[in-house]
C-alpha cells in the first residue's frame, strides 16, 4: 500500500495571466507522473495547481507591473504540497473570512460532506459571484487535498494544498 515517491521540488515565478496559468497544466501533470503519482492523482494535482493559480489571478491584488505569482511544488514520500503565493491588500475582514471558511471546511472528515453542506447553503440562495466558497470546497473534495494558508512576512497570501499519499494507517 505504501508507495515511495521520488522527492522533488520545483519553484516558479509566473505572471498573473490566464494564458501563463494554462500553459502550466501539461508540464505539471507530467511532473507529478514522473514523481510516481498514478494517472488519476497526477491529473487531480495538476487541476489543484491550476485552480490555485486561477484563484491567485482572480483574487490577488495586481497594482504594479512587476508583481508575480510564486508557485512551489514539493513531492515527498508522504505528501504532495502545492503552494501558490500572491500579493493581497491588507484586508483583515477578507482574510478572516477565508480563515473561517478554510477551518470550517477542514472540520469535516469528508471533504464531500463540506461540499454538500456548502451546496445546501448555496443552492438555496442566489450568491454573488466569488462569495459562495464552493470553489475551495470543490478543490478539497475532487483532489482530496487539505487546504491551508497564511499571510507571509511581506504581506503575500500563501495558499497551499496538501495531498497525503496513500494514508494507510497501519
Amino acid at each position: 500500500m505504501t508507495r515511495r515517491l521520488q522527492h522533488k521540488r520545483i519553484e516558479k515565478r509566473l505572471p498573473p495571466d490566464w494564458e501563463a496559468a494554462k500553459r502550466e497544466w501539461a508540464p505539471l501533470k507530467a511532473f507529478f507522473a514522473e514523481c510516481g503519482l498514478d494517472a488519476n492523482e497526477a491529473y487531480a494535482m495538476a487541476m489543484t495547481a491550476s485552480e490555485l493559480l486561477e484563484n491567485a489571478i482572480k483574487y490577488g491584488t495586481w497594482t504594479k507591473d512587476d508583481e508575480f505569482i510564486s508557485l512551489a511544488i514539493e513531492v515527498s514520500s508522504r505528501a504532495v504540497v502545492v503552494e501558490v503565493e500572491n500579493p493581497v491588500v491588507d484586508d483583515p475582514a477578507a482574510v478572516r473570512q477565508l480563515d473561517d471558511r478554510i477551518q470550517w471546511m477542514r472540520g469535516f472528515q469528508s471533504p464531500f460532506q463540506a461540499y454538500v453542506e456548502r451546496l445546501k447553503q448555496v443552492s438555496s440562495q442566489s450568491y454573488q459571484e466569488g462569495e459562495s466558497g464552493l470553489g475551495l470546497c470543490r478543490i478539497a473534495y475532487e483532489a482530496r487535498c487539505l487546504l491551508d494558508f497564511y499571510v507571509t512576512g511581506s504581506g503575500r497570501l500563501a495558499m497551499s494544498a496538501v495531498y497525503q499519499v496513500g494514508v494507510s494507517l497501519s
Partner: protein
Amino acid sequence: MSTTEVHAELFDEAGLAWPGQVCAASALSLRVRFAQKPPAGSVFSRVVLHHPSRPLTLTRCRLVGDGDQLVFLDDVYDCHTLMEQGRLKNLLGFFNELPLVLAQRNDITEGFRGFVADLIYDLTVYKKFFDEQDRAFSKEAPHVGAAAQEVLLRRAGPEFFRFLDGNLDKLSELVREFTSEQHERHGYYFRQQLWPFILGSAFMERTNLKPRGYAGDATMMQMIYDDRYEGAWAFNKLMHRHPVQHPAAEAVRNRRVLIPRLLRQHLDQSQANPFRVLSVACGPARELEDIFQGGVDPQRLEVTLLDQDDEALAAARSTIERVGAPKKLTLVNDSVRTLLKERAVADRWGRFDFIYSMGMFDYLTPPVAKAVLARLYELLAPGGALVVGNYHVKNPSRFYMAYWLDWILYYRTEDELGALASGLPDATVKVGFDDTGCQMFLTVERGP
C-alpha cells in the same frame, strides 16, 4: 420579524397585473396591500417584486386567509430573507442535489455495512433498556430516581463501555488499511447512519456540529477537563462520558499538567524578570490554574494569550480571574495564519521566555506549520523555549475521533514534527511523548 415593504405586481392567470405593497407575513408567506383587491382565493402565475437591491420574480402563489396573505404553490421561499436581503432562498433548492448524497453509499465495503448494521441494532437494544429504566425512575421522587440511576450507571455502565470499546476495536480492524478516500467515504456513511446516537451525546453532538466553526473549541475542552456525565438520561450520560475518557482526551488532561511543569523548569532556570509567557491558540487556558497555584510568584509573570475565538478568550479571562492576576495580562483576538504577517511583530510584542501552543499544530498542514513555527521562534528571547504539541500518527483514538466525532487532525511522526524546526538558527530541538503515547511535544530552545 421583517417589516420591509416592497412594491410588487402580481400577475393572475389571465395575465392581468394587480399592483400592491408586499411584506413578509411569516417565514413562509407574504402579506399584500392591494391597490384594488382581487377575488378571494385568486391564483397568480408570477409575482414581480421591485426590491431595492434588484427586481425578483417569484413563482405561482394563491391568496389565503383574509384575502391578503400569499402562499406559494411550487416553491418554498424564506420570506424574511427575501424581504430583508432581496435574496431568493428556496428551501427546497437542495432537493435536486439529493442523488449526489444518495450515491455516497456506493463503494461501501460489505464488511463495513454489516458492522454498521450490527452496531445500530446493538445500540438500539442498549438504548431501549436504559431508557426503560429511566422512565421507571422518573416516576419516583427526584432524589430516589437519581439514586437509582446512579446504581444503573455503576452496574451497567462498565459493561456498556466494554461494548463500545469492542466496537471501536472492530472499526479499527475494518478501516486500518483504507486509503484516505475510503476513510472519508466510509466515515460519511457511518455518521449518516449513526446520527441519532451521535446526537444523544452532548460531546459528540458538539464535535460534529462545531457551533464555533472548528473542532476543539473552549466548550469541548471544558467537557474534556470536566470528565463527568452530561445529560439527563443514563444512555446520554454514557454516550457523552465514553469519548471524554478515551486516550486522546486523557492526553488533553495530561498536557494541562505537563505545560506548568515545563514552564516552571524554565522559570527556575531563568534570570528573566518579568518572565514573559505567550500561549498561542490558548483556549480556556486552564493550565494557568496549575501555574498560578503551584507556588509561582504571579508578579514575576507577564502573560499574553492569543486565540482566534473571542469565546475562548472570555473563558481564558475567567480562568485568570479565578486564579489571581499576573504582573501583566494581554489578550489578543487573532489567528496565527494572519497574525505573523507583520515583520515587526517582535518590536510590538517584545520577546518571550516561554511560548507554547498545545492544540493548534494538529490543524496546520506542513507549509503553514513550518512558517508559523519559524515566526514563533523569532519571538523567542535568548535562552527561551518554545513548546508545541502534536498528536502522533499512532493516536489510539484516531478512528474514534475521525468516524464518531468527525474530528480530524494532522497527525505527524516524530521525524515530521522535528522537521518543522529544521533550519532554525541556534536552536536545540527535542521531541518527547506524554504518558498516553498519543501526543508528542516538540521543544525548541534558543541559545543564550
